[in-house]
């Protein structure tokens, strides 16, 4: 929307919309003045006399008085409430004196148009609706004329005639009269585009032809022809002002008939503000006065118009639309809140399930009761569930079966494989006393049901508390550390992790930790140190082993626990430790 200076819009597109356009185009190109509605000759003579500067008031009065019908009509109009004169005008001489030639010319023009357009002028076209809209434009133009300090009666005539070209457009194609209903329901901008599409010409171009054919005053033709688009830079200031008034009048009238009232009203108020600096409240006042003004003008012109729509009704419709939009927003907010509630609920349920899984996992960790040895372990999971595990239990002969393992990956899939692996170890370990044989069986089972390449690094073995002897198997796990006689030893993996190959060639290593200790851990420990201080893991771990060595047995795991608490915030991997002391004592479990 806006005042365009694009004169290229005057070029009529000959190639659009097929036959209908071609027909209109042809009809308008060949339109003759006689094809258009003909104004009564007597009234046209009066209009021309009014426009002639050489005609005196007396001559004009004589000319009008010679036609008693026109005289009666003019006097009726002049004395109507619409003109609001303080005293009754009884003679044409008096009317000419009071109103002036220009006002009389406009009155005569209005009469001419009215009389030229009979109800059946275009078959199927609702002429009374056209008048209603034209009167809305006329009374708006008059009100805007007052604001712009222009001849407001002339503005009224401009408003009344500005869309007269629309009739010429429909006149060429009466079979398209049904489109009128749709045109009334859209705003002027949309309507303008549709006219071009449906007829191949717009009402302003047709208005130009009509105005010229009727030999209307130049300022009227200008407003009729250029109120949508024109070469405004080269236009006389007064003509430009009339064009602006006509454009605004078009939008005000559309507010009352458009289907999208809220949007049209918004655009209309924006236009009034931009062009005439009319505030929102003043726009409302102007629009509120339209219905009554239209009734008065219709009476004055002797026109029958359908019951005029009140601005309150427009506002109600527009507000309803706005309320619907607000409702949609509220509904969206409500839905979002519901979704978030649902998410929180699901999250809580999931958390509960994970807590349950965690509980079950923890129950798989060894129970200290019944274990008569110096073995202790701790497991910290980075997530709710862990992929690490450790286990130990005492065999009938007093030896302790132990293991520590780490499942590849993290989360629930790792946790499930951890449960399977630890269950296999705990169950089969009671009958299979050889760690190599036991881990071979677990490997075969894991390989058989291998999923997503997941594997388990595992250290398993048997410790004899009486002697300090250890038999250990390392399948793809971190090196196992043992300290004996103040020397640090590492038992590296000699086979790949469990679950990758059907046969992995496991073998056992035996050594003695009497008066020393053995430390088994998952990669979470060196990673934790390196995360805190890159490259520090080797040094930190040796420091840790020395601390362990220097402490009494009962305090060792406590020290490790408090040591690792320092890193709690940066822990992002599961961490599991198993510590076996080379002396007989009670087991401790932490986690």
């Amino acid at each position, binding site marked *: 929307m806006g005042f365009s200076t694009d004169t290229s819009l005057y070029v009529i597109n000959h190639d659009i919309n097929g036959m209908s356009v071609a027909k209109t185009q042809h009809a308008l190109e060949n339109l003759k003045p006689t094809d258009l509605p003909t104004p009564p000759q007597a009234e046209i003579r009066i209009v021309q006399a009014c426009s002639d500067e050489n005609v005196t008031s007396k001559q004009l009065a004589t000319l009008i008085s010679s036609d008693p019908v026109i005289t009666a009509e003019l006097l009726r109009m002049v004395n109507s409430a619409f003109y609001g004169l303080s005293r009754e005008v009884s003679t044409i001489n008096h009317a000419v004196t009071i109103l002036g030639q220009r006002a009389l010319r406009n009155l005569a023009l209005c009469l001419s148009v009215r009389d030229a357009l009979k109800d059946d002028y275009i078959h199927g076209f609702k002429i009374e609706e056209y008048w209603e809209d034209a009167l809305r434009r006329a009374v708006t133009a008059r009100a805007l004329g007052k604001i712009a300090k222009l001849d407001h009666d002339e503005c009224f005539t401009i408003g009344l005639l500005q869309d007269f070209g629309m009739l010429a457009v429909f006149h060429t194609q009466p079979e398209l009269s049904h489109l009128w209903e749709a045109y009334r329901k859209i705003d002027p901008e949309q309507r303008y585009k549709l006219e071009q599409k449906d007829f191949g010409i717009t009402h302003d171009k047709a208005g130009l032809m009509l105005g010229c054919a009727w030999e209307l005053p130049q300022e009227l033709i200008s407003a009729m022809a250029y109120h949508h688009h024109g070469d405004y830079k080269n236009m006389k200031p007064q003509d430009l002002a009339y064009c602006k008034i006509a454009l605004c009048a078009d939008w005000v009238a559309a507010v009352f008939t458009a289907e999208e009232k809220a949007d049209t009203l918004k655009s209309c108020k924006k236009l009034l503000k931009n062009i005439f600096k009319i505030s929102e409240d003043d726009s409302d006042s102007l629009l509120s006065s339209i219905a009554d003004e239209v009734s008065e003008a219709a009476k004055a012109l002797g026109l029958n118009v359908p019951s005029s729509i009140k601005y309150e009704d427009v506002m109600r419709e527009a507000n309803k639309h706005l309320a619907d939009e607000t409702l949609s927003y509220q509904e969206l907010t409500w839905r979002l809140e519901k979704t978030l509630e649902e998410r929180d609920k699901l999250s809580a349920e999931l958390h509960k399930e994970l807590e349950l899984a965690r509980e079950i996992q923890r129950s798989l960790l060894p129970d200290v009761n019944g274990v008569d040895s110096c073995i202790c372990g701790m497991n910290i999971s980075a997530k709710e569930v862990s992929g690490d595990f450790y286990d130990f239990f005492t065999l009938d002969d007093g030896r302790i079966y132990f293991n520590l393992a*780490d499942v*590849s*990956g*993290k989360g629930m899939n790792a946790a499930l494989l951890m449960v399977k692996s630890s269950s296999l170890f705990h169950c089969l370990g009671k009958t299979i006393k050889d760690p190599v044989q036991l881990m071979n069986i677990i490997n075969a089972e894991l390989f058989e049901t*291998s999923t*997503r*390449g*997941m*594997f388990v*690094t595992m250290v398993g073995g048997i410790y004899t508390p009486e002697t300090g002897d250890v038999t250990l198997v390392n399948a*793809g*796990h*971190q*090196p196992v550390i043992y300290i004996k006689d103040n020397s640090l030893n590492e038992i*590296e*993996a*000699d*086979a*790949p*992790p469990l679950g*990758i*190959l059907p046969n992995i060639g496991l073998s056992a290593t035996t050594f003695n930790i009497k008066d020393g200790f053995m430390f088994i851990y998952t*990669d979470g420990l060196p990673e934790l140190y390196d995360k805190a201080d890159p490259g520090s893991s080797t040094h930190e771990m040796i420091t840790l082993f020395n601390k362990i060595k220097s402490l009494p047995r009962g305090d060792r795991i406590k020290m490790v626990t408090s040591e690792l608490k320092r890193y709690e915030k940066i822990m992002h991997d599961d961490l599991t430790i198993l510590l076996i002391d080379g002396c007989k004592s009670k087991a401790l479990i932490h986690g």
Partner: protein
Amino acid sequence: MEYNISKNGTYSVIMLEGEVDLYCSPDARKIILKELKKGDDMLIDLSKVSYIDSSGIACLVEGYQVANKNEIKFALLGVSQGAMNVLKLARLDNVFTIYNSFDDIK
């Protein structure tokens, strides 16, 4: 992690680059399995892998297992020091066929 797929003789070569960890290993898995479906022998170029965790290793293991099942050659190429340390620690250097360069492939 970034990746690049190319052809070298009968081999489809997938080059993985950067960190292959828990967050991007599902992508690496998808890429490897998709390429294996084509039936070409496969080389996983790990020369530009700066870090690989157990989930990344699991991707390689799965690729290896799928390839074995379908009688497709599957090998690692130019394994970076960091990745090699992880493989050696877990004795996986004995599981995978590892080539230092294309010239080693016979």
